[in-house]
């Protein structure tokens, strides 16, 4: 009996400790995870947490005082500029360490190390795209500039001084959840972060899809479905602007007609992990003669995936050289979107295509040589070692050609035949130091300084908005954009010949730009920057409709205030529906409709065209139009295992406005010839089925249907850390570009008065800790379209009501 008791007790004890201590039985080691002194309870930050601190570090040259306000925004006052970056690194790590490391692991293709085998394909994709290669090139440029390298060295030291101070119990929750430890921060990680943003903003292309579409449809139809300039384009730089003559007339190579435009084969594999084409932004600046204060107002709201922790971290940096406020990227020193004593600056994505594919002919499966300019040239080979949690390391050899890395070959895409391979040519691989732009912008005092700063920027191409207290407004579309002949790079190009290579870059001074225009405002919203009179070929992925609303509104506004600009950023007017609805209503055959279908039709007919949260009509309209789009194009464009691009929504709208017997209306799979009446009516009938089931679930209201969600970076694996079901309107093509999990990631309005009158808000909170009240405390404010007044401290004199805590940093 004694033995029995002992054995049972021992067995149960061993089993319990084993189960609680491992991940192989339960998904979490509940013993350490829930341990009060070691596990997640240690991440439960008291709501009255005292952030006051006095810290000493060898690396600091002088004193740094950090005033934390009631929203946990640090106002950093440093005696030495590089000390400010050290403290910024420390603070980024203190509040956002897991995110910084995770995002740069993702950039480098190292996610398998954390989550295991399921991420191998993602990691290989990143490596084969040359992300680490690109970051190494960027880092070498940073190291060649003393200002940049000293800033980034200080930043890295700051991050690491925080990491060194961490005990196991202090680790951010996600490390405890996934079971790993942070490694040291490096300068390369900061470079990797810039490449992650580049991938997000300049990593979208449709070369393979277009190549297939051209072959499938023929050139005439290709141009109809994928036109390069929308009729309704409202370009960034006003129509009618006179541009300089191009430097040279660029002609395609003689072989282009046979080798490029008339390919005989299609591309039979699907690319994964494409960036969201909705990544974009709005920005505008109005000059003093249109504002009530007589000073310019600058507005910017970058549209990105909405995540917790947020991509942004608000901060003020005051050094002897400058005083800047705005949002920063955890992972980089400096203020990225914001303002200083004299100027303000913001960005929208240029959307230009800076990424092309070349078909490579390898000598054999070793991939050691490829045919180029009439001889076999050696490839450079880069061995990628992908470490995997709980599994053996996977090795992948990537061949580099004169164009860049061979991203797709049979070893990666098994659908490819042995002799097919595609090399990637991408501006992101160039050696450049984009960080320098922000270091200079933070201290810029006028338009000339701004011009000097943006000259350092090459990719991802941005529209850079500027306003100054001295009254100037400006906008440059800045970046390195390839110099190409017409249609070059729309399709996959032959890689056996130097005649298909880019002919350098369009000179920066030829980039579209505006300075103090007579209209009194400048704006950009990811539309094509210029109309057809721009002398260079500018392919890309562009938005059409936000720009129309913004231009229409700004042209009509006068005596503008900062509040007016906030309202404009939250405007829900659907200008696309303004043109599309008349077509839907005109071509519906009412007699064929059921009671339900008539109900949805009348909701659309009586709609005020606002995509407001409580409206049901936006849901009905969207379902109806999407259904029409599918009816018209799906028969023409559905092919097995052959990637094709969906025509953009302006294509169908503009085609139907011009011609109600648009040739793609007919369903090629039926013997009869369908007309627009039938299509619109069938589209409504199909949409109504979906709408009826939505209505049953009480999801017909736009906000319910859209279900705006700010996901944690671990997406559906951590819904407990996400915020779902936010009540807000907006949508695709609307100034308030809030979609399901994508939209304005930071809204900022800066009036260039003295003192500066600035407002901002982002859907998150300053702390990345789900156990902090500062984790998601801005979300409610953001969702209702409200802002915080930004507290721009001119001096270290402390306002007791706003300043809650003080952290003092000094050298030892």
């Amino acid at each position, binding site marked *: 009996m*004694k033995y029995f008791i002992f054995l049972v007790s021992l067995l149960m004890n061993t089993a319990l400790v084993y189960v*609680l201590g491992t991940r192989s039985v339960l998904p979490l080691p509940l013993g350490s995870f829930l341990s009060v002194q*070691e596990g997640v*309870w240690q991440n439960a*930050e008291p709501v009255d947490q005292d952030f006051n601190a006095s810290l000493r570090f060898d690396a600091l040259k002088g004193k740094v005082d950090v005033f934390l306000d009631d929203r946990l925004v640090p106002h950093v006052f440093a005696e030495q500029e590089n000390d400010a970056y050290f403290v910024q690194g420390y603070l980024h790590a203190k509040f956002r360490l897991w995110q910084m490391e995770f995002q740069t692991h993702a950039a480098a293709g190292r996610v398998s190390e954390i989550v295991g085998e399921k991420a191998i394909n993602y990691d290989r994709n990143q490596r084969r795209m040359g992300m680490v290669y690109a970051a190494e090139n960027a880092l070498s440029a940073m190291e060649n500039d003393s200002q940049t390298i000293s800033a980034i060295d200080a930043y890295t030291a700051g991050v690491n001084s925080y990491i060194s101070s961490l005990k196991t119990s202090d680790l951010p929750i996600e490390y405890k959840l996934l079971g790993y430890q942070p490694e040291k921060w490096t300068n390369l990680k900061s470079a990797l972060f810039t490449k992650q943003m580049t991938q997000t903003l300049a990593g979208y292309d449709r070369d393979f899809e277009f190549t297939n579409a051209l072959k499938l449809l023929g050139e005439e139809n290709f141009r109809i479905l994928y036109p390069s300039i929308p009729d309704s384009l409202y370009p960034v730089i006003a129509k009618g602007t006179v541009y300089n003559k191009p430097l040279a007339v660029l002609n395609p190579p003689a072989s282009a007609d046979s080798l490029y435009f008339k390919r005989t084969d299609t591309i039979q594999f699907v690319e994964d992990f494409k960036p969201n084409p909705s990544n974009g932004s709005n920005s505008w600046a109005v000059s003093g003669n249109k504002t009530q204060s007589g000073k310019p107002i600058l507005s910017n709201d970058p549209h990105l995936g909405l995540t917790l922790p947020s991509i942004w971290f608000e901060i003020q940096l005051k050094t002897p050289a400058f005083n800047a406020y705005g949002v920063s990227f955890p992972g980089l020193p400096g203020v990225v979107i914001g303002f200083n004593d004299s100027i303000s600056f913001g960005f929208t994505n240029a959307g230009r295509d800076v990424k092309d594919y070349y078909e490579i002919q390898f000598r054999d499966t070793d991939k050691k040589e490829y045919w180029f300019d009439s001889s076999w040239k050696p490839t450079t080979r880069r061995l990628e070692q992908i470490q995997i949690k709980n599994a053996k390391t996977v090795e992948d050899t990537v061949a580099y050609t004169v164009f860049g890395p061979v991203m797709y070959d049979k070893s990666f895409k098994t659908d490819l035949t042995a002799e097919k391979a595609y090399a990637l040519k991408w501006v992101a691989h160039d050696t450049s130091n984009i960080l320098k732009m922000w270091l200079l912008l933070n201290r810029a005092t006028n338009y000339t300084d701004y011009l000097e700063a943006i000259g350092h920027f090459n990719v991802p191409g941005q529209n850079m908005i500027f306003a100054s207290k001295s009254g100037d407004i400006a906008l440059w579309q800045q970046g390195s954009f390839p110099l190409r002949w017409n249609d070059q790079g729309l399709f996959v190009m032959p890689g056996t010949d130097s005649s298909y290579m880019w002919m350098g870059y369009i000179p920066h001074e030829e980039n579209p730009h505006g300075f103090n225009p007579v209209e009194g405002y400048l704006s950009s919203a990811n539309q094509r920057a210029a109309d057809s009179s721009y002398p260079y070929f500018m392919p890309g992925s562009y938005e059409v409709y936000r720009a129309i609303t913004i231009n229409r509104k700004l042209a009509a506004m006068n005596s503008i205030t900062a509040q007016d600009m906030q309202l404009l950023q939250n405007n829900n007017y659907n200008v696309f529906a303004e043109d599309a609805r008349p077509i839907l209503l005109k071509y519906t055959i009412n007699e064929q409709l059921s009671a339900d279908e008539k109900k949805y039709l009348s909701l659309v007919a009586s709609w005020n065209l606002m995509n407001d949260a409580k409206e049901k009509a936006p849901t009905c309209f969207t379902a109806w139009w999407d259904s029409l789009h599918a009816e018209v194009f799906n028969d023409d464009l559905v092919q097995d295992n052959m990637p094709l691009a969906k025509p953009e929504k302006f294509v169908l709208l503009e085609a139907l406005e011009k011609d109600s017997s648009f040739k793609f209306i007919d369903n090629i799979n039926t013997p009869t010839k369908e007309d627009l009446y039938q299509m619109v009516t069938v589209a409504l009938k199909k949409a109504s089925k979906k709408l009826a089931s939505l209505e049953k679930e009480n999801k017909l209201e736009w906000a319910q249907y859209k279900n705006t969600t700010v996901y944690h970076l671990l997406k559906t694996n951590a819904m407990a850390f996400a915020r779902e079901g936010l009540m807000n309107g907006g949508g695709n093509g609307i100034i308030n570009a809030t979609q399901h999990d994508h939209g304005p990631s930071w809204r900022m309005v800066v009036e260039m008065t003295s003192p500066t009158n600035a407002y901002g808000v982002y859907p998150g909170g300053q702390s990345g800790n789900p156990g902090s009240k500062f984790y998601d405390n801005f979300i409610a404010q953001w969702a209702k379209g409200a802002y915080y007044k930004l507290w721009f401290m001119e001096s270290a004199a402390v306002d007791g009501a706003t300043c809650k805590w003080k952290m003092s940093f000094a050298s030892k």
Partner: protein
Amino acid sequence: MKFIVSAIITAALSFGFGLYFPWWTIVIAGMLTGFLIPQHWGLSFLSAFTGVFLLWGLMALFISVSNDHILAKRISMLVIKNSSPYLIILMTALIGGLTAGLSASTARSLYNLIKK
């Protein structure tokens, strides 16, 4: 009396070990008291269980209350798909209590085996 002393000592040792060592050192705390304090093995279990159940439960409760249960609600949702902070606090207490209790009863029954 032995019961209470045993519970307090197990809790105190667990807390002390927890300051420097991983969570499973409560096994050592439970075994030490189980081995050294003469009781019926069932009472050894119960006293160590009670000591660490209360230690972990009360500490988690205290932490969670000063956090307005922000984290407890999220962790509860994450682990047991329930938004009640008290369930996850109870679960925490049970994990600590059971581990310590079984360690104590294992040590006590071992003592009973070898004393002769």
